[in-house]
């Protein structure tokens, strides 16, 4: 049991849980959260391997990913609110057509 194993296990599980949330849940906001979870898991993995391989570029990537994820979360949020406000509800089962 070393850190690498723990990190791999955690990261892998978190990633697939995030994927499951995105694929299985019907509320758009929940999908967004799942997306965030996936990105977080990937970040953890990157940081660990940066330390392992002594690669600073990985850390740079992590920083950039955090920034982009934040921006994406915000824009996604505003989009979802827009959809919700149009009256059709924020349910992916209902929203099958790109309209309005």
């Amino acid at each position, binding site marked *: 049991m070393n850190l690498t194993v723990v990190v791999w296990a955690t990261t892998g599980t978190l990633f697939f849980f995030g*994927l499951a949330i*995105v*694929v*299985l*849940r*019907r509320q758009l906001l929940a*999908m967004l959260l799942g997306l965030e979870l996936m990105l977080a898991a990937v970040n953890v993995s990157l940081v660990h391997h940066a330390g392992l391989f002594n690669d600073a570029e990985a850390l740079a990537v992590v920083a950039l990913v955090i920034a982009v994820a934040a921006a994406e979360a915000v824009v996604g949020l505003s989009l979802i609110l827009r959809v919700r406000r149009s009256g059709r509800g924020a349910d*992916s*089962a209902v*929203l*099958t*057509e790109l309209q309005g």
Partner: protein
Amino acid sequence: MTAAQVPLAAWLLYAAPVSAILLGFFVARRFKPEWTHLPILLSCAIVTASAFWLAADVYTGHSFDLNLFRWAGAGPFGVDFGLRIDGPGVAVLTMVAFVGSLIHLYAVGYMKGDPGFSRFFLVFHLFFLAMIGLLTANNFVQLYLFWELVGVCSWLLVGYWFHKATARKAALKAFLTNRVGDFGFLLALLLIIFQFKVTHFHLLYLKAASGATFVLLPLIGVCLVWAACAKSAQFPLYFWLPDAMEGPTPTSALMHAATMVTAGVFLLVRAWPLISLVEGLPHLIAWIGAITALFAAIVAGTKKDLKRILAYSTVSHLGLMMLALGLGRTGVALFHLIVHGFFKAALFLCTGNIAHALHRSTASVDDAGGLRKSMRLTYLAFMLAALSLAGVFPFGGFFSKDAILDSAWHHGGALAVMGMLVAAGSAFYIFRMLFLAFYGARPEQKQAPHAHEAEPILSVPVLFLALGAAFAGLLKGPIERFVVLGTRGLPSGLPELNLVLNLPGEPLLPHFNPLVAGLGTLMAVLGAFAAWRLTMSDPGFDWRWRGGMAEAVFESDFGWKPLVDACVRGVSRVAGFVGKVLDKGCLDGVIEGTNGFVRAAGSAIARSAQGRINDYLWWMAAGTALLLGRVLR
């Protein structure tokens, strides 16, 4: 010979009936239906005169066979319409024309007052035309056309009183059984075209005489025999003929006695050069004929309805004709065909007179009785025809039957014995009929109190036919000359070809053999004596067999009828299965099933593209996983 040289008589053979029918249909039927018979009787007279004229032509050696026009062509092969006026054809044609004209005359009186009078005459004459066409056809396809036409007319006439369910059923049975034979004829036709590339008789005779071997010939022969057996009511396809007695008496007399049923025999005569080349086939024909003759003669002696007795008698005599043919005696078969036409028609018309006198459509032994006193002319005619049928010297039937018995005797074996037994059986049933119908009214019979002789228009034709039956023996020489000479003057009228129609080295019609003649006459006397014992010296004998198992056995033709019914039921069940289950269920099901299948598949596939984001995400995840798996390996 060109079309211009064809004698007028040959043109009139066709032109007269066709114009009579057209005139009758478009003019008479519309305005004065009761006059429909007039153009038709005129046409009958013209046809009879033409037939005699052509007979004289052929007798002096001027037969001809030529194609008139090509009806349909496809490259080298074509269906031609042509005329073949040769010995066998014109011999039978003369009988058909003469007997047919007399029956037309009889029908005028018989059908008077019937609401469908004009319909009857038009169809009757159409049949007459079809028979003429059949006898003068010069190739198999044309013969097939007229063969089918004859079958259609038979259906129309047997079902003439269509409001009777029995008549409709009988007509359908007759037509469908003939259809079974027609199928055989069609197969034979196709095989002939395939094997020989031509269907004209004279070309086929040349090919047959050329000595080459033809692979399909046995099959062709069997198919033709099959067709002839259905049309000429041989065992086992005879059962339609007794039921066809539902038609009016003139129909029964003309079609089912003299002409239509002999078409089968005539087909075999036309095809004889081909059939004689197949080993064993003539032997088969002879056996079929002998069995039919004996079986039908026995059954005829057990029937109660007068017309049905005569129907079985016809079957029996057709069997005799087939027997003669199978023994290689074409001339004998033709001779018997012609003589049989006379006496059978006479007998049928006498029965018609009886029925007419009793105001019924048909009579049975229960109704008739003691008519000797009240219907003298009919009795006389019946007696003459009966003596002819039984084969008593010097009446006509003696000569033809003697010829057949002589051929069978020559052949020896079982066929000879069967021939003699048939002679006895024929005498038995006809004399039974005579004694029961005309002699001493028995207590069991409803004595017909009002029976009187029929009017002249009904009795005179009968008399003529009976006289013809009596003196038909004189025709023996001319018939021989017809058959021998009949192929002279034809495109293939090679002298040696006569031998193809006859056993080589044997005379065409056998010379008189005292032993056979004596034996035949003895058999006839035995049969007549048996009939006298069972009907006159023991008047109630016939009625003691009523009720109980004997009657059931007789009614069912010794068990053959139920067998046939079972076969027909089985076949229709198979047909029903094929139609409902295979055709409708499987084939239609497959075709309509593809529709349903495609629709189901479509909606199943459509479910994957409904715009649901989650589904797309699933696919994306799976695809990415696969790709990554491939890439990272």
